[in-house]
């Protein structure tokens, strides 16, 4: 029985989605963080997801023909976080304390609307993983009652 694997898979999904929600929160919180130079300006951050294969976990297993439930995969992981390369917003605000000598300040390249959509998507995906975990839990609980009257 490999019901335990489902917990790992759904758990990895939840971790990944909460990290995505974390970057969204960070992006929205810093959406108006102005800066005087392009180097120090905050840039929108995005996580990069990739699928975990079982063979990555046990590299030696397949060579010996050990058959688990490989191929089913083992969830999702976050490869890393990349910063958006999109153009920064340059605004003319001479009264801003961080304005440069020409009177311009740089605002982050965060698209708030996009971030909100991303937030909804990640929260839905998180819920979906919780549902899966609950279902797996009830499946496991059923198994424990096997043979009872």
């Amino acid at each position, binding site marked *: *029985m*490999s*019901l335990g*694997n*489902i917990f790992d*898979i*759904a758990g*990895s*999904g939840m971790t*990944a*989605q909460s990290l*995505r929600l974390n970057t969204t929160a960070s992006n929205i919180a810093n959406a108006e963080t102005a800066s005087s130079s392009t180097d120090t300006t905050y840039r929108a951050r995005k996580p*990069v*997801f*990739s*699928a975990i294969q079982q063979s990555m976990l046990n590299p030696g297993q397949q060579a*010996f*023909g050990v*058959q688990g*439930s*490989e*191929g*089913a*995969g*083992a*969830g*999702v992981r976050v490869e890393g976080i990349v910063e958006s390369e999109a153009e920064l917003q340059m605004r003319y605000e001479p009264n801003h304390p961080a304005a440069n000598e020409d009177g311009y300040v740089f605002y982050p390249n965060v698209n708030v609307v996009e971030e909100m959509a991303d937030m909804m*998507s*990640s929260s839905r*995906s998180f819920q*979906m*993983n919780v*549902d*899966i975990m609950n*279902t*797996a839990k*009830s*499946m496991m609980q*059923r*198994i424990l*009652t*096997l*043979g*009872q*009257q």
Partner: protein
Amino acid sequence: MAITFDKALGIHQHALEARVKRAEVLANNLANADTPGFKARDMDFQAMMQKAQDSMSGFGMEKTHSGHMDTSAGAGDSDLLYRVPNQPSVDGNTVDSQAEQTRFMRNAMDYQASFQFLNSKFTGLTKALKGE
């Protein structure tokens, strides 16, 4: 008359196992719903059951060495197929979350059905043993 669990329980134990395997595959699809380039997978349940039935009727391959590969009702890579996407997304992901979740729920229901059958087998055995 010898009682063996394999004979007494019939196909249901294999069905239950196959349901668990399928649940795992579908859970993996859903966990990777936002992974670029991920291809949704599923298994041919009928083929798996056929395999289980063949191994039950004694036509399966016998394993006489620990290095022999398992040809019975395990979810080998050959059982796992790729889903034909209805509407693939631009990033190459072929997971349709709603459809996958429906399949997952359906699979959980079928699991319960298999469980019920298996449980009634055990109940029957217990009754036979008690002789009440």
